[in-house]
């Protein structure tokens, strides 16, 4: 068999769309500072504002509601940190509790954790076995009062489960809280309209949609309380200091344009590939347990556990065969705990350690999926054959 390399890790990052690359290569010639008044600066400014208009339009927002950031993580940090500032100084009326979910990205969870040390209460919503936020718990907590911000991700990066953001927004607003959604994984994969969703803040990222790394955007609804996270400049209408990343911004806008053209048909195609994978894995591998929501899930994301086989080993044996996936195992993360997302759905640690995430993208073909389906059963069999998981305990009492 000839050596192939197949990338199935698009939720981690994506390759540049050829059109994005073309746009960025030509934009590299342009070096003016968008804040300069001369012709060099005006050219850059025109491009930045044109990009802003295109990004805004794709999510039904107004240009003035888009703040470009250095990443999705920065956008999420901005929203949560705005809140801690708001609770003390800028907006004294802001209420001191944040409500978020147990399956958010670490940039939300760790920032929330840090806010606790700064006097903010953070409550975490449970999810069901498919990863759906417990809406009764949400409403019960909102009823108690004092919640200033609800932050729930639109689609989960590990298991793909989608939340009903429209409903969560309306609940949040009903009880006087602001609403933020981290749409980094959803944006460009499913329609995102800030007005239909009813959110006050929404986070997107360039490199998850075939755009460049190092660029994100935060939607901030008009007249929503706001406070810059990075200070010291008038850029982005005083909402994010630092000379604009013109190249990244233009790349992001082109990526958005391409999504507008390709998203709809692409997602139908990817859903077909995912179902082919789900069926093939189910047929060819014993005890393959699928994680996440069976229907309400990103078309490109399939998360599956193979009890008795550890995820990092699966990842690396697949890597040796030229296939790139990711895992929820502890070993691959550098920590000792397996995926917090999978654990939050109530599955046990062994199943989480044995999980892999296959995230499809626009370059993946039926042949790629067939190759994975040819290779994966042998990898799992091999790992299970050397695994202790099938030894029935008893005689071998452990002695330290």
């Amino acid at each position, binding site marked *: 068999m000839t050596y192939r390399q197949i990338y199935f890790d698009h939720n981690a990052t994506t390759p540049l769309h050829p059109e994005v690359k073309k746009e960025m290569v030509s934009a590299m010639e342009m070096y003016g500072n968008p804040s300069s008044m001369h012709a060099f600066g005006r050219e850059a400014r025109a491009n930045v504002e044109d990009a802003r208009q295109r990004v805004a339009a794709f999510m039904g927002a107004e240009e003035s509601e888009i703040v470009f950031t250095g990443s999705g993580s920065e956008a999420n940090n901005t929203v949560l940190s705005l809140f801690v500032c708001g609770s003390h100084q800028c907006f004294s009326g802001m209420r001191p509790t944040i409500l978020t979910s147990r399956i958010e990205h670490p940039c939300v969870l760790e920032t929330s954790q840090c806010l606790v040390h700064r006097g903010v209460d953070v409550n975490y919503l449970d999810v069901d076995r498919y990863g759906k936020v417990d809406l009764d718990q949400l409403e019960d907590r909102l009823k108690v009062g004092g919640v200033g911000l609800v932050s729930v991700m639109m689609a989960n990066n590990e298991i793909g489960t989608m939340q009903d953001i429209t409903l969560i927004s309306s609940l949040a607003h009903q009880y006087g809280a602001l609403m933020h959604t981290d749409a980094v994984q959803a944006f460009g994969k499913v329609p995102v309209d800030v007005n239909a969703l009813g959110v006050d803040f929404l986070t997107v990222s360039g490199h998850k949609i075939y755009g460049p790394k190092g660029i994100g955007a935060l939607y901030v609804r008009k007249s929503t309380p706001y406070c810059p996270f990075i200070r010291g400049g008038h850029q982005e209408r005083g909402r994010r200091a630092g000379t604009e990343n013109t190249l990244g911004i233009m790349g992001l806008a082109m990526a958005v344009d391409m999504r507008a053209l390709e998203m709809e048909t692409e997602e139908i195609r990817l859903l077909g590939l995912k179902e082919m994978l789900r069926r093939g894995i189910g047929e060819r591998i014993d005890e393959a347990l699928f994680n996440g929501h069976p229907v309400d899930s990103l078309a490109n994301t399939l998360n599956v556990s193979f009890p008795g086989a*550890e995820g990092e*080993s699966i990842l690396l044996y697949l890597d040796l065969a030229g296939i790139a996936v990711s895992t929820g*195992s502890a*070993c691959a993360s550098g920590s000792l705990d397996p995926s917090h997302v999978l654990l939050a759905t109530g599955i046990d640690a*062994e199943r989480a*350690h044995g999980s892999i995430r296959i995230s499809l993208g626009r370059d993946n073909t039926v042949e790629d999926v067939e190759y994975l389906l040819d290779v994966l059963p042998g990898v799992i069999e091999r790992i299970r054959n*050397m*695994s202790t998981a099938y*030894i029935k305990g008893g005689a071998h009492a*452990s002695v330290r």
Partner: protein
Amino acid sequence: MLQSGEWAYTDKLKEHFESPKNILQGNDTSDFDGVGMEGNLQCGDQMMVAIKVEKEKEVISDCKWKTYGCASAIASTSILSEMVKGMTLDQAFNVSPKEVAQELGGLPEHKIHCSVLGDKALRAAINDFYLRNGMIDRVKKVQARTICQCMNVTDHDIEEAVLEGARTFYELQEHTKISTVCGLCKEDAEAELEKYKHLHFGV
């Protein structure tokens, strides 16, 4: 395009991961003279070691294993099974995780944790051999010693904390709450911390 050689692990480790040696086929260990198992599936690592022993010489003539775990767990059990063949039981009992890691050409620091179960399982297998052969006096149990009476922290807990990343006394306290009440054990605890840092990381 990626260069396939650029692994987070050494070539030696990759070799033992790609082609592990001495895997026990099937689940039957009845032909073996001693069997030991350590770790558990919930923690993500479990290792089983089965040995055959030339009884008169007390030399390990064969060593097979099973491992549930990551690449460094698989590779370290594999290389351990090669290392101990021909060793006396006493020699094998004293193989340290650091020697295993050295034999693999080094391990990333956060992976040391995944490789310490192999030698523990081996010691359990050796003790199992002694038990089966009526040599109860030879069974060496490494008893946990309580260092901090207030918070009931043992030397094994300290070792665990070091493997999980604790390097300073403060970090050790974050992991174990050791010496957070009366503080009398601080000196003892610091000595244990240094011991395990040296044992596992050579620092």
